């Protein structure tokens, strides 16, 4: 078995005292979340994962705080025995920042659970439902050489899956996570199986493709188990002895890998995936040391085996940038020396304009990583550091455990594969904003430069020629709205997370006022940067349930414009008072004075730091900011489009 995958080799090996540390932790009353996550961040085997998962579940049941792990309730429907997998899954989820609660109904009751309104699954109010089904759960009949019958079988299977989905949607409105189906390695004809309609391989190929299309259209989530099984090998994945003994759908040795992959998806649903790849330079993106070997001495050439290994790292970084991952450099080097290959080496794929933040100096890497996160206005836990030096890796893990730092093998040929295998940048959707994101951050750096040259902030804002656009929630914006709701941590008053179905519900509810805000300026389109949800409270009162903003547009007085817009609609709806609340987390200090700055009055404060605010609509006219305003998609009376 390929140990990179089966042993999760991007994670450090567990310490010999794992069991003792876990016991000590379980007995203590300290904040368990960070410690549990730290223990989970090693390459644990099934027994270790089981122990940790049980400890997490026990702590949750005893009402102990698991902050800052984000809670998620997952119901699992399966045609196989998953009991051995579930504790491992809880531990894997902790590794990815999720406090997972698993709801498990009786064995092999998939249809009953999905379709009955009051079933265990549907009545448990799950955030997501995993359909952990393998091919043996499908109504499949071989029809060798008969294309028509094969197509009917495929449609039958898809219809079954669709029915389950509709049942879950109607009865619990949870996000559905479907698994693709790993074909067994036993073939009937041999290679012909792939081509001949009606063989098992043919049927599963078709079902997997159609399932993927169905999911793209519906907004559900795909867990590509077929790809995972192929990556490790179908003969390793399927274990006939374990199926016969206990109806295990796949090999016990791959449970840690399965758990980690599913946990990445859960983390992505909650917006906890990483956003930034920080690259070391010497012996990471090129072979050799630029300060010693010079421009001619470093290895990045095509045709040189070692050079090609490092080029593969650059290519992967570039591909990640093209899907919206931000690139940064952290290197112990003299700045001009470090920049030279980017400017002058003909074989370099990465150029300076791909890099949002370039930190080459002699400070320690932990300080540099903090500076990178600050410059990008992103949390430390958005960063991944790729570094060939085990000492630097160890240091960063110790000082900044929130940063993901993959272990790397000795041979650089496997660097790119190891980084990809770690799956730090898992996504469940891909929207236009993702494509533009890397550009945003570079634009921001330029905006910051401009700010330094301008005398006053207002003059600067004026020069940006901003256009702010207000729309209610709508279909085209829904995926991005959901993404913002689930990943905004800093400029977020309440940090309430909603799934896409819940967002859609708010969209259609006539009593709920919703706002999606876009901002464009002379440097480009920032896309959607703010989301507001107001729910009806007492008569003539709106309670601001959600108010969040992307930190990219901090300091532009966007929040003032948003409040003006809310007030405008409140007036037309006959609302007298707005009520706001600030719910503190360890990430949203930034907005502790948000309501005070906007002229709200504090009416109550709890010991936890929770504060309550009110603003009378009459007479409230917050200051305006120099930007063009477009407001559309609301009831006709409220629309305003500039001449």
């Amino acid at each position, binding site marked *: 078995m390929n140990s990179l995958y089966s*042993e999760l080799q991007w994670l450090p090996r*567990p310490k010999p005292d794992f069991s003792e540390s876990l016991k000590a932790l379980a007995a203590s009353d300290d904040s368990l979340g960070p410690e549990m996550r730290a223990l989970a961040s090693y*390459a644990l085997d099934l*027994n270790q994962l089981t*122990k940790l998962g049980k400890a997490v579940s026990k702590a949750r049941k005893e009402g102990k705080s698991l902050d800052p792990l984000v809670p998620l309730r997952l119901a699992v429907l399966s045609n196989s025995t998953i*009991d051995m997998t579930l504790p491992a899954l809880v531990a894997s989820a902790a590794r990815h920042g999720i406090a997972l609660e698993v709801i498990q109904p009786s064995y092999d009751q998939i249809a009953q659970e999905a379709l009955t309104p009051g079933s265990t699954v549907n009545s448990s109010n799950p955030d997501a439902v995993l359909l952990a089904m393998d091919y043996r759960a499908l109504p499949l009949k071989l029809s060798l050489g008969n294309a028509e019958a094969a197509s009917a079988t495929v449609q039958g299977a898809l219809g079954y899956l669709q029915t389950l989905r509709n049942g879950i949607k109607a009865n619990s409105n949870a996000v559905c996570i479907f698994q693709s189906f790993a074909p067994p390695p036993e073939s009937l004809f041999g290679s012909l199986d792939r081509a001949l309609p009606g063989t098992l391989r043919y049927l599963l190929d078709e079902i997997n493709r159609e399932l993927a299309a169905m999911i793209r259209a519906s907004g559900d989530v795909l867990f590509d188990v077929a790809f995972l099984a192929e990556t490790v090998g179908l003969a390793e994945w399927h274990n006939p002895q374990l199926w016969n*003994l206990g109806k295990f759908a796949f090999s016990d040795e791959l449970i840690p890998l399965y758990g980690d992959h599913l946990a990445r998806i859960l983390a992505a649903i909650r917006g906890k995936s990483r956003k930034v790849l920080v690259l070391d330079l010497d012996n990471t993106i090129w072979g050799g040391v630029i300060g010693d070997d010079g421009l001619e001495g470093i290895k990045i050439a095509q045709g040189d085996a070692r050079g090609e290994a490092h080029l593969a790292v650059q290519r992967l970084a570039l591909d990640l940038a093209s899907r919206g991952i931000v690139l940064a450099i952290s290197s112990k080097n003299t700045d001009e020396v470090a920049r030279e290959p980017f400017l002058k080496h003909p074989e370099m794929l990465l150029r300076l304009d791909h890099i949002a933040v370039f930190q080459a100096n002699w400070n320690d890497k932990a300080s540099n990583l903090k500076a990178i996160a600050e410059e990008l206005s992103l949390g430390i836990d958005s960063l991944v550091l790729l570094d060939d030096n085990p000492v630097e890796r160890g240091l960063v893990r110790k000082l900044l455990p929130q940063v993901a730092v993959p272990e790397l093998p000795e041979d650089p040929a496997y660097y790119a594969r190891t980084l990809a295998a770690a799956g730090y940048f898992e996504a469940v959707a891909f929207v236009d904003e993702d494509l533009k994101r890397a550009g945003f951050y570079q634009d921001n750096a330029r905006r910051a430069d401009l700010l330094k040259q301008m005398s006053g902030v207002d003059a600067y804002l004026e020069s940006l020629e901003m256009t702010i656009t207000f729309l209610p929630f709508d279909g085209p914006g829904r995926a991005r709205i959901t993404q913002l709701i689930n990943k905004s941590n800093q400029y977020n008053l309440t940090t309430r997370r909603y799934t896409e179905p819940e967002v859609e519900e708010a969209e259609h509810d006539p009593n709920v006022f919703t706002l999606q805000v876009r901002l464009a300026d002379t440097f480009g389109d920032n896309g959607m940067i703010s989301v507001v949800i107001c729910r009806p409270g007492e008569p003539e009162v709106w309670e601001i349930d959600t108010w969040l903003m992307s930190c990219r547009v901090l300091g532009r007085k966007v929040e003032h414009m948003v409040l003006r817009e809310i007030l405008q609609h409140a007036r037309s709806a006959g609302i007298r008072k707005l009520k706001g609340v600030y719910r503190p987390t360890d990430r949203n200090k930034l907005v502790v004075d948000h309501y005070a700055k906007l002229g709200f009055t504090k009416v109550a404060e709890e010991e936890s730091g929770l504060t309550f605010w009110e603003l009378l609509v009459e007479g409230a006219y917050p200051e305006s900011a120099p930007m063009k305003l477009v407001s559309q998609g609301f009831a006709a009376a409220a629309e305003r489009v500039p001449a």
Partner: protein
Amino acid sequence: MDEAPIYARLTEIFHDVFDEDSIRVTPVLSAHDVDGWDSLTHIRLILTVEKAFKIKFTTSEIGKLENVGDLVALIKTRASRSTLGILPAPLENSR
């Protein structure tokens, strides 16, 4: 083959699998004596033993095990046929 090191190793494995350090592993120990030794944990136990001793049991061998004595006898037969080392590395490094 001496049984003492097998028992020593099994003791480590039992403590790990059942997460209980007070279990005393003796020949007569069976599922009746240990909390949480259900059919699923039994499979996890067997899989851990297989990995630790680098051996594989057949389905019918797994079905026939009544107590730890049976398990040790089976490990002895298997290990004597195995070309791999008789005694594996300590648990924490066995991966």
